[in-house]
């Protein structure tokens, strides 16, 4: 179980080329989604994807540019909800570029799943721990049976 999504890629292109694909709406659309992005801190924009009613997701990703350091770093919030103005998922997407001799290293981190913070405070929340948790009802039942006998 992880609380963040992280991917690293390498391109044999200059940071300028890679940066364009992260910040020009028509280029973003080619690989990511239709969008109303503008490269300005504070800019509120949307990504348009398919709704997923089962997950109470109306298909619009609501984002705000939080940080923008040309050719180096781009951060935006990543929020969505069922379409009634409420937000179910509140997270942050960060792109970092590092210039290398023969190209550019690009890192994507999607984290800050805000309403999950406390959830992930359950540091022991892994498969093993969940299994332990599921033993508890059995323990309680056993205790109950013991009480029943006495």
């Amino acid at each position, binding site marked *: 179980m992880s609380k963040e999504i992280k*991917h690293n890629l390498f*391109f044999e*292109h200059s940071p300028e*080329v890679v940066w364009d694909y992260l910040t020009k709406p028509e280029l973003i659309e080619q690989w990511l989604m239709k969008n109303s992005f503008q490269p300005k801190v504070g800019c509120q924009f949307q990504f348009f994807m398919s709704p997923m009613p089962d997950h109470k997701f109306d298909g619009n990703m609501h984002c705000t540019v939080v940080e923008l350091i040309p050719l180096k770093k781009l951060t935006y919030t990543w929020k969505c909800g069922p379409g009634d103005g*409420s937000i179910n998922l509140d997270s942050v997407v960060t792109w970092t570029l590092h210039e290398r001799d023969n190209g550019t290293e690009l890192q*994507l981190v999607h984290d800050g*799943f805000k309403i999950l913070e406390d959830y992930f405070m359950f540091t022991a929340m892994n498969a093993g721990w969940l299994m332990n948790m599921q033993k508890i009802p059995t323990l*309680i039942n056993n205790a109950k049976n013991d009480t029943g006998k006495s």
Partner: protein
Amino acid sequence: MTQANLDAFQVIADPSRRQMLVLLSKESMTINSLAENFDMSRPAVSKHIKIMYTAGFITITDVGRERYCTLKKDGFSELQEWIDFFDKFWISKLKKLEALLNKKTK
């Protein structure tokens, strides 16, 4: 109240419910002992418990006169599904970006 069918994210969007889940992550507790940790009416606590129960975050076991709350995997799995969804989402999008840039002449 139409809160019986909140999804997993709505369940944990409430600070009191998050705190209840944190308490329950340490041990199973009776509704009464759980309620002692909160400055709210017993019916209010019961309402939160019902919401968490309906969304699969806890189970309730009757032991004598007491009702024990225990964390349950299902609710948490739904949260993890979202993260897994976006992980797959990014992998497929990044592949597209890679293909585009690889095609592009340097």
